[in-house]
């Protein structure tokens, strides 16, 4: 474990130094020939590093694959990497720097705050951004702009798909509560899940759900016991949690002795991929987790299998996080768009991306022309701790067709329920 991550760090360091050497501040050329330059912008340090680093790996594999196959339009892809430290101001500076170095095609971004900040300056900088994880609904709703694209699902799709599966599988569980971090993303996931419960329980379980007021939690804290206690007092049986990363680990760990996971079932985790499960291993309580991409759900898709094989080879990790698939897909989207927008000019790239259908590890995806939201399958898996070498196992997974749970395209208009 320790050894592999250190090797990762060194590998990342290698990329960074190479990127640094390429990225001299006084170079201001936008090449019309030579390789297409793609700028990766993601959290490579700070609290979201463990999300940004795998995303970058996916991006790198895609670039290698495409270049090995002769590139796009006979031109190679060149990757320039910048760290946004999950801070909006650092992200905007890095984005501007990437554009200054001739990378007007940007991708990556973990944090919604960074995505919103960078998205706001895209038009001014004449650049395009495809985000691979940032989930804020505002990006394709009230703060939409034409230079921004999202390659993955959004809370409306993800959380409603989760509610869909719950109504289908746990029709008898009609009381639901939530443990929600008190920020925009947290509230937005809850609103969407709440909407999904109200939509699918009457439809699929023939029952009206009773939904409690969610417990709003802090984030970045070290003590969630009072929130867990509040949730324990709540009569709801099913629980939805959208705490993230380290916060989720802390919360689950402190919830365990209260018998939270014995009393509350099922638990739906909004988006933690395998991050929390890999950390908690045998102690990880069973829950349904939303994911960007799960290789086990798409076996048989050659792109999927190849990506999973290469990633496991490189990192030794068996349960791969969805960020890898999304980084990979974003590069694929650019490569596909460049086939028609061979100039690489921003206006052309935007035009080519709108309505684009392309191959990805989750099968065919289509980018909606109106609000630049991608229609893609939503993935859920049921994970629990296990006494095997990995410490966890995926009991089952579900894939929901994205088109059935997607929001109507209303760019510029705030999402309301």
């Amino acid at each position, binding site marked *: 474990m320790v050894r592999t991550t250190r090797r990762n760090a060194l590998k990342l360091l290698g990329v960074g130094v190479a990127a640094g050497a390429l990225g001299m501040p006084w170079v201001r050329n936008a090449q019309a020939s030579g390789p297409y330059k793609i700028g990766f912008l993601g959290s490579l340090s700070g609290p979201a590093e463990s999300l940004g680093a795998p995303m970058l790996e996916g991006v790198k594999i895609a670039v290698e694959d495409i270049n090995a196959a002769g590139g796009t339009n006979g031109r190679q892809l060149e990757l320039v990497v910048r760290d946004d430290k999950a801070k909006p101001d650092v992200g905007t500076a890095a984005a501007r720097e990437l554009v200054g170095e001739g990378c007007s095609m940007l991708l990556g971004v973990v944090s919604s705050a960074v995505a919103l900040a960078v998205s706001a300056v895209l038009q001014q900088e004449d650049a395009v951004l495809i985000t691979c994880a940032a989930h804020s609904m505002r990006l394709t709703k009230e703060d939409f702009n034409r230079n921004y694209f999202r390659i993955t699902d959004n809370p409306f799709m993800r959380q409603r798909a989760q509610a869909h599966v719950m109504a289908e599988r746990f029709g008898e569980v009609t009381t639901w509560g939530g443990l929600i971090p008190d920020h925009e993303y947290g509230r937005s996931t809850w609103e969407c899940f709440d909407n999904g419960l109200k939509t699918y329980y009457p439809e699929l379980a023939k029952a009206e759900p009773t939904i409690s007021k969610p417990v709003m939690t802090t984030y970045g804290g070290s003590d969630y016991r009072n929130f867990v206690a509040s949730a324990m007092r709540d009569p709801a049986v099913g629980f939805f949690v959208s705490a993230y990363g380290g916060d989720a680990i802390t919360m689950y760990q402190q919830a365990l002795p209260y018998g939270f996971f014995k009393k509350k079932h099922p638990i739906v985790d909004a988006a933690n991929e395998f991050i929390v499960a890999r950390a908690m291993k045998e*102690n990880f309580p069973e829950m349904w987790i939303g994911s960007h991409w799960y290789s086990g759900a798409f076996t048989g898709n050659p792109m999927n299998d190849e990506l999973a094989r290469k990633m496991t080879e490189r990192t030794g990790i068996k349960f791969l996080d969805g960020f890898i698939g999304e980084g990979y897909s974003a590069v694929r989207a650019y490569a596909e768009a460049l086939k028609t927008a061979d100039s690489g000019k921003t206006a052309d790239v935007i035009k080519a991306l709108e309505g684009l259908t392309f191959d990805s590890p989750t099968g065919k995806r289509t980018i909606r022309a109106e609000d630049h939201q991608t229609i893609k399958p939503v993935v859920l898996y049921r994970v629990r701790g296990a006494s095997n070498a990995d410490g966890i196992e995926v009991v089952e997974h579900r894939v929901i067709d994205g088109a059935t749970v997607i929001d109507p395209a209303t760019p510029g208009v705030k999402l309301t329920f």
Partner: protein
Amino acid sequence: MVGDFLLVGLNGMTWAMAVFLVAAGLTLIFGILHILNFSHGGFVMIGAYLTYTLINQTSGPTGIFVFLAVAVLCAAVVGVLGYVIDRTVFERLKAVDDSYSLIATYAMLILCEGGVKLVWGPDFIALPPPAGLDGALLLGDLFIPSYSLFVILSGIVVFLVLDFWIHRTRSGKVMQSVALDPWMANVLGININAMFTTAVVAGFALAGLAGGLLAPNQSLSPGLGGTYIIQAFGVIIVGGIGNVRGAFIAALVLGMIDAFGTVYVPEYPGIFFYIAVAGILMYRPQGLLSGIR
């Protein structure tokens, strides 16, 4: 209702003792050297990571005594680190203005983060409580996680030991006199440099111990160093400069205010800690107690 009240009180106690464990070493160093050690949280983090690694070396489920032994071992290792830092960094900070030590130790906090990332990687890590502390006691209809009780007990024990040392032993009393008037202590033939080093090593060892004992309390990541530090600052300042008793009382007071505030005014979680710190400092500008005691 009474059960709720007890539960919130217990959670407040757990928080209070966790923060006190971190603050104890901080206030010791602050009291003697007048260095507000920003990197203290970083060394708590190193203690926690070390504990994680050592526990993973042992096979099978970890018992309480193994866990305690590992925590003490980590305290020793971090204490040695403290000795090195005393010689290389703190030694030079004595001559400069107080605020410079703030930036030097801030730089050390950044270094701790970088070091932890290099050794353990950026991914989140979790350490479960040892066997015997992973369950809960049932008191009536009240669930009391045994690990919470363990944290509370650890805090109290550490407090009692420190208090005994400072008030009942010769070396503790010497330490008090050094804190009050190093010049006079020097005149009386006390080797104050040795006392400074002792305080630093003890302070760091306490950081390592806190890290070890609290490793199962929350997730481990390179950002852990900053998690407790502001709370610990609040506690030692409200408690009064270098005052271990004060810090203990302050931790309890602030923990209770924060716990009840969070439960009864859930719209603004976490804000009550700061309101309490500001309020108490306005009422008692020198903290609750003062002088190393």
